[in-house]
């Protein structure tokens, strides 16, 4: 899985393209931890290119959410694809990681 980061004044956007699985999960944690350590406490994970996520990937997202919240910020997800949406709903984690329709929408009401 490939990650890219783009920082705006309001948030950092982390783009993940490929499969968010046991291999990619620790990498996502590292990327988000580095982003938060640099001072971007509001993070949007753009999942437009994430076509598959397993429970390790979901665990990594939850870990990243905790990292952002511990720094006083938050982490949100956007552009979720059908397989990822299914995993979020079947594990009831869509309550905690609510998918936003776009990266812009993720922090637009804050």
């Amino acid at each position: 899985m490939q990650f890219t980061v783009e920082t705006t004044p309001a948030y950092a956007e982390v783009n993940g393209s490929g499969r968010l699985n046991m291999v990619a999960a620790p990498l996502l944690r590292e990327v988000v931890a580095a982003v938060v350590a640099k001072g971007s406490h509001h993070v949007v994970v753009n999942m437009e290119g994430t076509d598959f996520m397993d429970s390790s990937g979901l665990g990594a997202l939850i870990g990243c959410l905790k990292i952002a919240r511990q720094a006083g910020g938050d982490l949100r997800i956007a552009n979720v694809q059908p397989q990822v949406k299914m995993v979020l709903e079947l594990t009831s984690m869509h309550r905690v990681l609510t998918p936003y329709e776009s990266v812009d929408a993720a922090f637009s009401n804050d």
Partner: protein
Amino acid sequence: MRPFPMTEVLARSSRQGLATAATVDALHEDFEALWLEAGFVPEMDRMAFSTAVIEAATNVVQHAVPASETPLQLGVDITIRSRRLEARISEIGAAPSSPGISNPSEIDDDAESGRGLNLIHALVSTVTFERHGEDNVWVLCRHSSDV
């Protein structure tokens, strides 16, 4: 034309390799080829079934313990019938074990692991875990909805 009997295998796929992430990755390609052959399977069934199989295979890579010094092998055999998708996921050369599932209400929202087995159960109709000789075998079955 005679309709397909419900028990006839219409597509199948088989893979065995070291229990590693690379073998699990190859399963994604196996499924792509399988769905080309079995185009009649509805999208929701494909997505749920393949996610369950890959989740179980990942569980083998992460948690199965070899019974000896011989490296653990992962075997995945998939058969597609008109209304029944079945996978046998084998932990070849694994020590006996019995993965338990947690009550979903007991998993904290901020827990970072422990959801895999519950997810598998939510994705397929039946899950069995059996000991066959030197192997542990998961059998996942999803009854396809509207073929």
